[in-house]
């Protein structure tokens, strides 16, 4: 057992939470977040998602571009083991609930359990670090993923969201579906999967997060059993093409539309933001300030939302928020309306009015309070803690300090941010219309 591993404690007295970080000799960062829950949740993730499509390959040493959807395909195939078994079966034997997901910038393998944690953790570390791809197994997965792609193709909300990204971004890979297309996944081979795996699944690019009623010693002992006891000192850094540098400040297209099986039009409005701080802590700060600003502008308690409802312009469900990562950032507002263009016009009028009259200090305090409460509430679930912690790790920032960051955001800072946010030239809208509207 690795008793001598240095440990960094990260603590929040206000949240009454603490977790520990260990740099394992294998190169893997291990986070243990103790929580008095029946359920323990473990997540083994890599900072590799669907947008990492052009990179210096660790196997060839050359810049390569791989087919869209390959990170997601790899996630599916990793569960198949060399002996022909499926990792899911072993998790089931242990009573664990296992799963995996791929997002734009990360891939996560996870399980939750209330018993036999050690067996499940061992399995998680084993199967993710032992890839086995063959042409036959790749071929057999194409049918399953093709149906997954068709399922998302039929989902109007999904189509509308991607439509907004396609309208905002001209080049960035974020405009392409995480799963790829039926055509792009047909180009995936076992060799390409290995190339991506060896580039992005090195342990120094990954993290293990465990949250629940479990001791650090147990986690470290199992990591010692499964993972290598050392890693190459001089690993070449992972180099991906930074697609934000290609993007203009303006939205690529102001408007796109699709026609699908929907009962009334749905819309996604995006406000592109290319001013992305290089440092993780600064991105966290911008995220906190922008999230408060979103609450001030679009909250259900606010003037705009209630005007849109009163005038019958929208259905009650209106979602909004800010998203920021290393190479993309945008605000978005999504909902349902018989007249999405009128909604956009009213939003723009409102933003213009507030720019003149100024933001309200009272709304700022309320927005901050809402963000504070939502964040604190997220610490009731081992699943959300582990996933949020890893999301912060991927962004090179720290989870518990987000509360202090929220606290430190000032009204003046938000007002200043507002001046350069939600500008008309950065705006892109996607509308999904009912099929009969198109026929007309």
């Amino acid at each position: 057992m690795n008793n001598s591993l240095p440990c960094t404690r990260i603590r929040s007295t206000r949240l009454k939470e603490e977790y520990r970080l260990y740099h394992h000799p294998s190169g893997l960062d291990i986070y243990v977040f103790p929580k008095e829950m029946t359920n323990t949740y473990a997540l083994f993730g890599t900072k590799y998602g669907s947008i990492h499509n052009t990179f210096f390959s660790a196997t060839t040493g050359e810049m390569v571009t791989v087919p869209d959807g390959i990170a997601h395909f790899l996630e599916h195939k990793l569960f198949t083991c060399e002996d022909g078994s499926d990792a899911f079966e072993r998790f089931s034997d242990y009573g664990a609930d296992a799963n995996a997901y791929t997002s734009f910038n990360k891939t996560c393998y996870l399980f939750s359990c209330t018993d036999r944690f050690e067996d499940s953790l061992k399995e998680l570390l084993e199967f993710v670090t032992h890839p086995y791809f063959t042409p036959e197994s790749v071929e057999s997965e194409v049918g399953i993923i093709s149906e997954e792609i068709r399922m998302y193709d039929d989902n109007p909300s999904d189509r509308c969201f991607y439509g907004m990204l396609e309208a905002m971004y001209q080049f960035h890979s974020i405009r392409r579906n995480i799963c790829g297309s039926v055509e792009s996944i047909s180009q995936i081979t076992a060799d390409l999967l290995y190339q991506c795996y060896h580039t992005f699944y090195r342990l120094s690019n990954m993290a293990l997060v465990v949250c629940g009623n479990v001791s650090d010693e147990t986690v470290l002992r199992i990591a010692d059993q499964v993972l290598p006891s050392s890693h190459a000192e001089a690993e070449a850094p992972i180099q991906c093409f930074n697609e934000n540098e290609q993007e203009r400040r303006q939205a690529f297209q102001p408007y796109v539309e699709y026609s699908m099986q929907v009962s009334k039009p749905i819309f996604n409005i995006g406000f592109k933001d290319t001013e992305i701080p290089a440092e993780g802590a600064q991105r966290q700060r911008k995220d906190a300030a922008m999230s408060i600003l979103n609450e001030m502008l679009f909250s259900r308690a606010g003037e705009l939302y209630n005007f849109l409802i009163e005038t019958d312009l929208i259905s009650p469900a209106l979602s909004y928020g800010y998203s920021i990562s290393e190479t993309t950032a945008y605000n978005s507002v999504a909902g349902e309306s018989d007249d999405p263009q009128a909604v956009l016009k009213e939003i723009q009028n409102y933003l213009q009015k507030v720019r003149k009259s100024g933001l309200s200090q009272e709304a700022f305090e309320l927005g901050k309070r809402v963000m504070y409460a939502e964040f604190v509430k997220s610490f009731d679930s081992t699943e959300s803690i582990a996933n949020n912690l890893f999301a912060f790790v991927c962004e090179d920032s720290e989870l518990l300090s987000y509360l202090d960051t929220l606290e430190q955001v000032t009204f003046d800072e938000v007002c200043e941010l507002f001046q350069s946010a939600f500008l008309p030239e950065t705006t892109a809208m996607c509308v999904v219309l009912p099929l009969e509207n198109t026929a007309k």
Partner: protein
Amino acid sequence: MIPKKVTVTDGVTLSYIRTNKFKTGILTFTVPFSLNRENLVYNTLLPGVLRRGTRRYPSMAALNRRLDELYATCVELRSQRIGKNLTLSLTAELLDDSYAPPGAKILEGVVELVAEILLHPDLEGGFFRVKPLEQEIRFAVDSIRGEINNTRAYAAIRCAELMHRDDPDYPTLTELEAQIQKVDAPSLTRYYQNTVLPSHLQVFYVGSASIEQVSLLLNTYFSSWQCKKVYMPVLPMAEKSTGFLRVNEPMPVSQGKLAMGFRTGVCVSPNNDRSHVMLVLNEIFGASPVSKLFMNVRERMSLCYYCSSAYNRYNGILTVSCGIDSKNEAVARQAILDQLHDIQKGQISDAEFCAALVSLENSYRAIDDNPIELQTFYGNREFFGLSGSIDECRDKLRSVTKEQIVSLAGQIELDTVFFIEGTKVCAEQEADDE
């Protein structure tokens, strides 16, 4: 964690689980009454209308603002069908007072606000206001029509409708839409005053406050809640089949959606309960990633991305949901039936059986970690007067044998097949055709 129950007033009872485990507290208010078509129509509209304003917070903006002030308390009102019963419920999810500055009094604020919503809606001339009601009717109609946006959920709804084709208390979406549009302010107000208000109010609390504190708050703000008639819930009963039905609905989507409805004849019951056997059967059949449906229809045959089953213990219906290429419908349907036949023939491996048991054990134990799930588990049991803790339910699961499963599987009958036939031609299919 097992709830305790106290009577607060003649019309209000409180079940509570006191725990410091969570940063979020849960307060659920449930009003039960009988399920019939008329009640269902009114009850569909009432949640939205009650959320539009109260005497003290006379607009939706004012109500929402108060919720934000109460540290982003989330209030959800809904109409729910539980077997042959109907409930109006309000669930408030609130930040524990220990995470707010001293004096914030979130719990008290929330009880006061909920009392406003349930007891003092914003009336005009003694009736619900016309304009918000008209809007809520439009929203409800939009919501019903919008079910088609999610084809997987829509297929399940249509399958359930068809299985209840002879049930007068089960209107179709189309019938519900037509009836909702006939509701006016006087009739909805009468329903609220004559059916909801005189009913018994069941409150469930999970959080750190003492029972004395919660009781006192309920006493203070709900003293005017007067129960005039105690509703005795209709116990779950397995509905009978009226013959096999198959319906195909073409739709311009790229993926076909298959929904199959089976009758098991087994419901949760205070006597001779076999629903735990059915739970294990369902787990083996299609509820887990190592179930027969997942391992065969998805993994071995590569027919779909998802193929799973679900069991409703309040009406005894087992459903299967699967997304497929439309041309594979017959193959997928047969493959699904084959998996059930295997269970009926006793072809259940030890690995499948053990995996189902440990998976269910895991799910039951995990209930303790979620205040909403705790409330749902114990709230529903209380509703039907069923005894038994989570541990006792786990004991029952452990006692299930393969023989019991095979015996029960033999009585499962396919009742309805509903299929959304995708008629949209995909780009790759066009290329293939060329």
